[in-house]
């Protein structure tokens, strides 16, 4: 168990890092990123939302319930200032369903983001029409701004 015992060496390294970056010593080597929305904005260069794929189909593997299927959105962000969020929202008011996914991005984190609200089971009793009206929204939001990138009305078909 001498000083050359690798786990001991790593343990010492971990301990020193934790204490040195901690509240008392406060070396700014490791900065924990906030995950909540702040000020700022992001410029979005391209968006892919396959809205035609939004539909209602039967569940598989014995789930015995219909699902509102919402495809993932892909958002390419060129530049970010502050800490805004990307919000992707699909709602079908007649079924009382609103699905959303958000991503808070920070300064410097440009790139392509996938937003996946997932699928939502539909209350079996409420499904009585062949198609429903839905809305798709994609926005950049912060405490300063709210910019709508996509706002679209869609028809959601029930395929059974």
């Amino acid at each position: 168990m001498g000083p050359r015992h690798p786990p001991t060496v790593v343990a010492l390294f971990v301990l020193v890092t934790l204490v040195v970056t901690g509240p008392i010593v406060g070396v700014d080597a490791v900065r924990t990123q906030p995950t909540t929305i702040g000020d700022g904005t992001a410029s979005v260069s391209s968006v892919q939302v396959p809205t035609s794929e939004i539909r209602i189909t039967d569940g598989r593997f014995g789930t015995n319930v219909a699902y509102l299927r919402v495809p993932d959105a892909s958002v390419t962000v060129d530049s970010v200032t502050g800490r805004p969020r990307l919000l992707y929202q699909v709602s079908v008011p007649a079924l009382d369903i609103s699905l959303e996914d958000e991503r808070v991005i920070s300064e410097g984190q440009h790139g392509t983001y996938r937003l996946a609200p997932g699928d939502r089971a539909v209350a079996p009793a409420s499904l009585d029409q062949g198609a429903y009206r839905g809305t798709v929204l994609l926005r950049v939001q912060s405490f300063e701004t709210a910019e709508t990138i996509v706002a679209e009305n869609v028809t959601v078909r029930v395929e059974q």
Partner: protein
Amino acid sequence: MTRDVEWLTGRCRRFGKTVFGDRYGYALWLGLLVTFGLYWRIGIFITDTYTTANALVAVSNGQLHITETPYTLTLGSQPGLHESGGNLYGRNYGQILLAVPLVWVLQALSVLITPRLLLLGLWSGTALLFVSQVGELGQRHTDTAKRTVLGVGSGTVAILFLIGALTATTLPDTGLPIAAFQISTMLAAATTSLVIYRLVGIWHDRSVALAAGVAVGIASSVGFWASLPKRHVLVGLLILLTVYLFARSRVAYADARFWIGLGFRAGAYLTAGLVTWTHAFEGFFLVVTLALVDLVTARRNSLLHLAVVGLGLFLGSLPMLVTNYLISGNPVKPPRLLSAVGGANVEFTPDTGGDAGTGGGSGAGGTEGTGTDGGTGGSSDGGTGGSGSTGTGSEGGNTGTPVLTPLLGLFERIMGPAAPAMTFVSDAVRSGLSVLTTPDRMSQIFFRSGSAPGINYAPNSYEAIELTMLESVPLFGAIAALPVVLVRAVNHRIRRWSVRPSQYSPRTQTDILVAALAGVFTLIYLSRLPLHTQLTVRYLLPTVPLIMYGAVRVPAVHETASDAKRWLAGGYAVSAVGGVILGLGAVAGLDLALGEAVQFHALLNLGGAAVCAGTVLGHTLVPDRVPSGVVALGLALPAGLTTAYLLLSGLVYFQYGPFALDFVRALAPHLPAV
């Protein structure tokens, strides 16, 4: 100085040996904690936890009643909240008090270390301990040099630590108490595995014991609940610990070491009594079942032995009695019997979920441990939540000397009417028995869930996420061989019918206790099942380690784990990795929704269970036709598939909070989402 260090090292070594048995047990325990950390999310998964988490914060601030609610917006709407003397209380105080020291430790360390990095540091430290143990053990069994294992392992931990530190996100201060709560459950889950390792290790060789430990930890639903701070894992641990101490007492009695045997025997009752602190209802059934089996099988039932056993039970129940006294003024009235507040009607506990009689009796149950069933029984006929009897309780405690009066009251109440408590017990058992005769319902609890007609899926947003016992622990397919084994055992026993139960071998006596406990803890919950928000039939979770013990006791299983360990380990690794790839592939390729993904695993697991049942039963009936290598694969397949489900349920399917470890959070967006 050197002598002091040596003395201290010696003490640590002896303590380690007492708790962990050997280095393998320690490595198992550490490895499980490291694994649980990987899919640990900080947050609240089931609404019942809001109350217990708020109560935990209150207790860590030095009071039993809840005034602040860091985990809910408003006070009074959480399920499981109870009222006494104008104050609001939580429940499961035994479980909460276990987590309180952890809250303090985390809060103290957070003065020095940023909270998020603190969790990362704790995980890294555990992982490094694990690596050094594995390095030591690897040298014994393989040609790999210890240095290589240590180097590679430590390097991996260092890299993960660096990634975690560099991508660290902020953890709010309110995150620490709930994190501590989750750590307490993870410790309980890992310790459950350790106890089954030690229990099985009494009868079988080490590889069988290790396999049983790993199976309970990450190839059963115990791993699913490891980082979800519900009571079930803790109760399961205490039940198993009771069995372990019982087994040790039988071994000692058989060796004519009566004092040691008596010590373990009293320890078993003490542990059983402790369950009442968390859930009086379950504690009652544990104590009664233990007492029945223990009295019949003990080699000594002299007055002295019984007195010591009674003392053990009293000591185990004492924390519950004191807590109850502090809360309601009545030591025999647990929080669950106090009038419920707000959303208590959505609480899925035995006392408020169903008929009124059950509600009252559950409190009675817990206190029967101390011989006061009559008294609480009397106060329990007030119905659900026992609201009708609040007055009686406070009167008893508020007069006279604080300690003596309630104690005297206890004795008086022993003579009180025991009828309501007995009615409750017989009701729970009778309604459980009636479920046994309804095959559809049994199938929805034990075999195939799908979309079970008996479950209200609305609270789950209509997602079919409720697995059955066999779907959540497909290794239980091995139980298919149990009837054959039992018939053989009974045949064997009939030929030696003159042997009294007290002269049975310690192993048989322990088997009887495990069978009785598994039966009782299944039966009493049957009438409430199937139910939503169970996920893996969590009400039956305490039986999972017991049934796993039963599976291991099947000769085909323990002989395989002993003879074909390489097949078992290799098959398990392949099956786990394959299960993860298959699950991720299905989610991405078939665009599965949550319920579909869970049911996909359910079907996979049922397939694994069928293979398991077939090979184990085959080997039991025709050992020559089914070699042990095949049985090993038949066991490894469902075990690996379960591990895959545990990992994916934490990493992909159920999202209720941020990952505790940021290197996992950084990985998660690259996985397909449901």
